[in-house]
């Protein structure tokens, strides 16, 4: 306990020195590319935090809707009839009653021949009441959901990058959530609007001669106009050209009218479809639908073979730019809902840093004064170790590029308060051993030995509590738990190794008969 090999001494000092070096990049830039810094949390630098949920229910419903469409077309194609064709969302199935029992077997074989998205995606079964059910497997829905979340993250990233946000962080949380952190963006309204738009653009033929006052006949949807939600228009459910086939979209002003518009270009598949549709339906209105709202429904004036077109719809510059951005980034596979938002302005962040720094400074000084007053020389050694502790905490946080939050600063402060506990334990123990009549050497030796098990026990319980906090906590609480957890580890190092080293060196140099306790 009283002997430090040269190697051990050198190692302890080296760790402190490396720690000091690792702290420097937080205050001054160093040459070389590998230096790392602590990140300031959003609460300190200002910014926005958005927690979003991917609407997986809608995703499942849409898959079932499109499956219903497929079933209808497959049956019609083979001249088979059906009644009560409907989607059963609860059972993940499409069900219908055959026109007559004779057609039952042919219905089944048509359904069996349907291509699924993967093996075993679809099962065909007879229901007790004579209906036939085409069921989507749970596994395929799960896969679809997982893919949808990954794809959503990708699209969210593209959309946010397009807004020019600096250093955004987009991460998955749990099964169906996405966390977006935008440093420096204190008003997330624009981003929220961009992310809240699915941007699913499709081209449909307008169902002519269908009244919008009555419920829609099968295969027709009655949709509102985007500019005037009260104006309704009936369009064919069938998608003639999908906006996912876009290769480019940009906002611009129409050369003749000066109105803002979005110019788009389709890929080869889209171009071919677009040419065919325009050729076959000259003079008929063609609706451009964005997220179930009709932007515009112009009459087809001529064949469009080039695959490029223009969308006009009373846009202003901002709306046209946003729409172009959304179309370029692609449609979200499912709607996103913001379920939690935290936005912090830059001035509040600066206030918090100041408050945190002042508290940290004063707290440090108070603890240092206390230790000096109550424990004399060994107290000052403890203070040196405390300073090293602070340095090492900052070093470890920098090394992990951890995020420092306001609660994190509180955690550092509390660590400083708790860190000297180990020194107090050792000093009190040494003092007791001296009173029992041990020599200076014996007292120090016994003090270190006996106090160590207590120190380990007490720190282990604290560590347990904070690891729990880190695992179950969210947001700011995690930052707090992280700094305290790191603090406990650095405390064990500075008290069990560094401050003991100082005391042992002092003893070796002075060989005192009386200890300053």
């Amino acid at each position: 306990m009283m002997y430090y090999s040269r190697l051990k001494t050198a190692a302890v000092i080296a760790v402190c020195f490396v720690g000091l070096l690792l702290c420097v990049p937080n205050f001054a830039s160093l040459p070389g590319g590998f230096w790392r810094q602590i990140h300031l949390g959003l609460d300190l630098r200002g910014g926005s935090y958005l927690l979003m949920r991917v609407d997986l229910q809608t995703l499942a419903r849409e898959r079932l809707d499109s499956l219903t469409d497929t079933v209808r077309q497959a049956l019609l194609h083979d001249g088979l009839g059906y009644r009560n064709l409907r989607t059963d969302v609860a059972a993940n199935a499409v069900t219908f009653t055959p026109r007559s029992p004779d057609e039952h077997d042919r219905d089944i074989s048509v359904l069996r021949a349907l291509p699924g998205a993967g093996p075993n995606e679809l099962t065909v079964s007879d229901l007790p009441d004579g209906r036939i059910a085409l069921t989507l497997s749970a596994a395929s829905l799960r896969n679809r959901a997982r893919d949808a979340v990954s794809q959503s993250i990708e699209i969210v990233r593209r959309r946010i990058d397009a807004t020019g946000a600096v250093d955004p962080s987009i991460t998955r949380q749990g099964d169906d959530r996405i966390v977006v952190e935008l440093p420096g963006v204190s008003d997330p309204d624009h981003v929220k609007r961009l992310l809240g738009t699915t941007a699913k653009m499709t081209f449909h033929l307008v169902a002519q001669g269908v009244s919008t006052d009555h419920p829609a006949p099968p295969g027709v949807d009655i949709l509102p106009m985007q500019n005037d939600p009260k104006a309704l228009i009936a369009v064919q459910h069938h998608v003639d050209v999908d906006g996912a086939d876009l290769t480019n979209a940009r906002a611009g002003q129409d050369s003749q009218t000066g109105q803002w518009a979005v110019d788009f270009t389709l890929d080869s598949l889209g171009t071919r479809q677009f040419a065919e549709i325009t050729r076959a339906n000259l003079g008929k209105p063609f609706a451009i639908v964005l997220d179930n709202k009709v932007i515009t429904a112009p009459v087809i004036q001529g064949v469009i073979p080039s695959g490029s077109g223009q969308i006009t719809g009373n846009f202003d510059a901002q709306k046209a730019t946003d729409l172009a951005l959304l179309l370029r980034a692609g449609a979200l596979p499912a709607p996103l809902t913001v379920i939690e938002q935290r936005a912090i302005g830059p001035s509040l962040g600066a206030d918090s840093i100041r408050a945190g720094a002042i508290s940290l400074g004063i707290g440090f000084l108070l603890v240092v004064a206390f230790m000096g007053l109550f424990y004399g020389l060994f107290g000052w050694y403890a203070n040196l170790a405390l300073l090293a502790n602070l340095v090492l905490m900052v070093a470890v946080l920098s090394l992990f590029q951890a995020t420092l939050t306001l609660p994190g600063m509180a955690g550092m402060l509390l660590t400083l308060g708790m860190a000297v506990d180990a020194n107090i334990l050792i000093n009190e123990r040494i003092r007791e051993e001296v009173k029992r009549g041990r020599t200076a050497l014996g007292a120090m030796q016994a003090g270190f030995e006996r106090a160590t098990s207590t120190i380990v026990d007490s720190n282990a319980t604290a560590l347990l509590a904070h690891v729990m906090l880190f695992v179950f906590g969210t947001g700011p609480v995690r930052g707090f738990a992280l700094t305290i957890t790191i603090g406990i580890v650095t405390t064990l190092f500075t008290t069990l190794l560094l401050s003991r080293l100082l005391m042992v060196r002092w003893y070796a140099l002075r060989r005192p008969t009386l200890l300053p306790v």
Partner: protein
Amino acid sequence: MFRRPIARFVPDGTRISFMRGRWLGLATSAVLSLLSIGLFFYPGLSLGLDFRGGIVVEARTQGPADFGRIRAALAAQHVTEAGLQRFGGPDDVLIRLDAPAGKDAGSEAATQALVERVRTAVSQAQPGTQVLRADAVGASVSSELFRNGLLALGISLLMILGYIWFRFEWEFAVSAVLTLVLDLTKTIGFLAVTRFEFDLVMVAAILTILGYSTNDKVVVYDRVRENLRKYRSMPLRELIDLSINETLNRTLGTSSTVFLAALPLALFGGATLSGFAWVMLFGIVVGTSSSIFIAAPILLLLGEKRLRRDAQSAAPVRARPAGN
């Protein structure tokens, strides 16, 4: 000042008979905890945004905040049920809203739309107003955060129980956790009285208090265990008193340093952290005194027959050697 210590809490050889006042300590603690439980039901905790859901917008106006104009601007945005509150200086205003009720109840989108309306209203009410913070938490998130907070509390209590059980005897673990539960109820009572908002940061404060309080008890227990081996025939009551006295300087010293570290945070930490820090300070005082006046008496009650059952027959004490 640089060589010898110049201050000390209690002189060496202090022998205060804490266990004589054990019933008084336990009774006081029980009364306080019962009162706190009463306060928990009425008036109850003031739940923060994290757990209640809804909206909080903090704004700094140029010149003193004019609540009348802000209310009018909010009304123009069809926001009528907002609570306005001064926050820090005269130009800081805090606007609170519950999650929308009625037809929009539980709708996350409605909550999110509302926050934009509040933001607009506040910036229009007085020119030059800065929105410092705008938070909106949907109902599903708040209930989940609440569940996670309670889960973290419960699990850490269990882990502390397990750890002390493993390192000491079960009497130590049970008395520690009982004491922690008493500490916890008092902290809840403190929150109810002071009306500090109970949110995730407060859960962090409470967990830290539990960690600190456990740490404090472990040090006393560690000494009790050591003395159990050292003084084989000493009655448990005297032995616990001796152990508390021997560790008294340390107990007071460490609680002072933690207190001193947290004090600036309470005084200068700003509105966000001062509530947290005051709860910490309260917890440090409660946690320190409960080590002496609650945990030790409970240990005495639980262990009087068991931990010392061998003392009469002068047989070796059955203490686990894990601490060596």
